């Protein structure tokens, strides 16, 4: 279980998070919604160890993640699929995926992990030797998600996975997330595509201006007036 | 410029004024030579400091301008032109060259600017070395009429000019703009500070002074190889002195120059290799631990002493 309490963080003197508390329980899919600049990426980056928070606690599985070095976070079972994918462009699909299992515990099991990822995303198996920069956006996103899965994380965090993807591909990614979750992996999803996120999330939080502005179950948030007006707009269509 | 730096400016100029009296005390030639070298070093360091400390770019081709000043001055002066005019011409050539390559060079950032200017300096040195391989020696008549005190006063004047120039720069609108682009160029541009124009101005001032220093070099030495003043070690000396003293301050290059020449002339006589080892190690230590150089060390000591005094 991931427990965040009173998290404060920012860049230079500028605060991005002003006291955020939330929870992600085992096996859950939790969505983090909010407008641009609300601090969603900062939150994920704090958990992943890329950003050092100013105050607050991040506890995962009873362990204080704040104290962990960034490259050890994945050893503790938390993986992040960063915004914009951040793949190793000049390297092949297979090489990118393999590096996902770089951690000493995961490395010996990488072949099996690779097979699981290829089973989840068959198109990647066909293009395993291709340099990732030559892939389409959707395929790159699959590689990014696959790479994060290679170390068998128990919490998978994703920062805007649907950004720049066509609806068909977004659906494919979401399907994959549901399958991953069925295997027992908790999913913490930051998304601007609210309907997509809420369609599979068990619960969600609303982050506005660095603070939690609301929370509830997926359906509750979907029906919430504020959410509908702010994020779904006049084109909101009931699923 | 802080009140602190203003104090230093006054102190340095006062010291220079005192040094003007030195020749009247009838000292030995080697004392005058020694002080001359310090004064030349001060000019060289302060001129390099303008681009590095105020415009924030590491120019590794500084010797090119020193060399050009020397070349033009030597050529014109030995052909009959009065030396001051020849030096002015040398500085002008250096500045013109700087402006021409500056426009292209400033398109490069950081490390690329540094190694690009290094390469340009080397191209010049290599070309001069090939085109003018013969040693340049003053004609006998000139040697007969050689007055060390003239060189000395010229060096004194030049050192004073360079200190005043840096002081004026630091307090001017120009200097403020430069500090802005040094801190954050994008932000400065956005608030209307024309970065390229400012950098070119800094470069022009820096190279003009370097050119004058080169002219002084040509006036001082009886014989040398024309490519010698183009050698990168002149740039590196300026770098060393400025950083050890404290880049971006008025007094830093002066302190660094004094320390450098003193150590070099005295220690070098006994341990010609070790002194460079010491400087290298000192330089590394300063970059890592005390990026503000001696000036920062003095500040800290002052702070510690002040605290101790208050506590006592």
């Amino acid at each position, binding site marked *: 279980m991931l427990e965040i309490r009173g998290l404060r963080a920012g860049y230079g003197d500028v605060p991005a998070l002003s006291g955020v508390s939330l929870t992600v329980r085992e096996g859950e899919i939790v969505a983090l919604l909010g407008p641009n600049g609300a601090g969603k990426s900062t939150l994920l980056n704090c958990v*992943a*160890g*890329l950003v050092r928070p100013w105050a607050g606690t991040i506890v995962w599985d009873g362990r204080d993640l704040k104290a962990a*070095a*960034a*490259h050890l*976070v*994945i*050893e503790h079972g938390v993986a*992040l699929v960063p915004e914009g994918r*951040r*793949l*190793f*462009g*000049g*390297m092949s699909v297979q*090489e990118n995926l*393999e*590096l996902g299992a*770089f*951690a000493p515990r*995961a*490395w010996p099991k990488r072949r099996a992990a690779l097979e699981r990822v290829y089973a989840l995303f068959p198109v990647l198996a066909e293009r395993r030797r291709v340099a990732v920069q030559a892939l389409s956006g959707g395929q790159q996103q699959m590689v990014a998600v696959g*790479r994060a899965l*290679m*170390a068998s994380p128990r919490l998978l965090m994703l920062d805007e996975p649907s950004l720049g993807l066509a609806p068909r591909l977004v659906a494919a990614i979401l399907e994959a997330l549901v399958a991953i979750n069925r295997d027992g992996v908790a999913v913490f999803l930051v998304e601007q595509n609210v309907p997509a996120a809420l369609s599979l999330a068990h619960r969600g939080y609303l982050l506005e201006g660095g603070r939690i502005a609301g929370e509830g179950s997926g359906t509750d948030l979907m029906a919430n007036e504020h959410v509908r007006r702010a994020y779904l707009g006049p084109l909101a269509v009931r699923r | 410029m802080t009140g602190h730096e203003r104090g230093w400016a006054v102190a340095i100029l006062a010291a220079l004024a005192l040094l003007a009296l030195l020749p009247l005390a009838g000292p030995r030639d080697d004392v005058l030579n020694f002080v001359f070298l310090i004064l030349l070093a001060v000019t060289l360091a302060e001129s390099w400091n303008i681009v590095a400390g105020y415009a924030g770019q*590491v120019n590794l081709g500084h010797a090119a301008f020193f060399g050009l000043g020397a070349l033009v001055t030597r050529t014109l002066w030995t052909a009959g032109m009065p030396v001051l005019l020849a030096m002015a011409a040398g500085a002008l050539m250096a500045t013109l060259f700087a402006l021409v390559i500056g426009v*292209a060079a400033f*398109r490069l*950032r*950081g*490390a*690329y600017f*540094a*190694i*690009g200017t*290094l*390469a*340009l300096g*080397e*191209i010049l040195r*290599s*070309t001069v*070395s*090939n085109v003018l391989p013969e040693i340049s020696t003053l004609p006998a008549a000139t040697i007969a009429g050689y007055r060390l005190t003239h060189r000395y006063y010229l060096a004194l004047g030049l050192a004073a000019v360079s200190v005043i120039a840096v002081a004026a720069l630091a307090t001017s609108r120009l200097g403020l703009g430069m500090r802005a682009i040094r801190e954050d160029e994008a932000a400065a541009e956005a608030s209307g500070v024309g970065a390229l124009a400012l950098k070119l101005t800094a470069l022009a001032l820096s190279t003009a002074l370097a050119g004058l220093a080169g002219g002084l070099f040509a006036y001082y030495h009886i014989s040398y190889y024309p490519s010698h003043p183009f050698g990168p070690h002149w740039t*590196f000396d300026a770098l*060393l002195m400025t*950083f050890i003293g404290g880049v971006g301050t008025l007094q830093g290059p002066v302190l660094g120059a004094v320390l450098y020449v003193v150590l070099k002339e005295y220690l070098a006589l006994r341990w010609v*290799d*070790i*002194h*460079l080892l010491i*400087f*290298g*190690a*000192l*330089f*590394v230590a300063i*970059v*890592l631990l005390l990026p503000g150089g001696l000036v920062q060390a003095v500040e800290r000591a002052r702070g510690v002493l002040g605290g101790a005094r208050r506590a006592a």
Partner: protein
Amino acid sequence: MILGQQLLLGLLIGGLYGLAAAGLSLIFGVMRVLNVAHGELIMLGGYGAFWLAALLGVDPFASLVLVIPGSLLLGAVLYTGLFGFVVRAHEETRVKNSLLIGFGLALALQALAVRLWTADERSIPTSYSGATISVGPLTIPLVRLATLALALVLIGALQLLLSRWRWGKAIRATAEDWQAALLTGIDIRRAYLLAFALGTALAGAAGTLVTVAYSVSPSIGLEWTLKALIVVVLAGLGSMMGTFVGGLVLGLAEAASAATFGGPYREIVGLVIFVVVLAVRPRGLFGR
């Protein structure tokens, strides 16, 4: 000397330019540190071989077996004690600080070399030093041919290391995107250490080969740093083989220019190429 012979000699030294550049390219590509003392590390490698030959009679080619691990260790020490602190800053400061530290280091190492071995030029004469083979009108000095071959082998070995070895892949990943590397569990500080050590090992090897084929003196540092820089800029970052080819190109260009304009202009052509590439195509011939 006929043109063909000159070009051949240019090619032969070009291989060493490539090897010298490969080390610098690796280090800069991975951690954005520009070690301008790289030439001095080459110089030290050369003196290492010289010492082994002069004191223990070790054949210079065989001495690579000792020089390479020695340089590897030296690189690790220099990273841990010096450049490791530079990487804490963000990129622009990092580059500037590494430039300055490299400069101080170069000064100190050069002075050290003068102290230990005097300023004289040294070389390693062997029983086979003068051996040549003739191919048509060309005379190929065997020692230099061997150094070209070894340079190619070493670069090939590095390429293999980077593509097959787990930490080699980690190094490449870190060069591409250090934050993503952290996310996949790569300790980037260790990647930096390994890259710096490997780069220094290549420098040491290059120094040995330079000394056996030509000579070494304390002042060759700046010259070789410049050559390496020229090749790195010419070839661009990211490909070891590309860097090797870049070295060959420089060697040939120098030979062609010397043949056309005369010996003194050999050095200038490299610098001019450098400046032109920086101005026109900063990412080099093979860079991404």
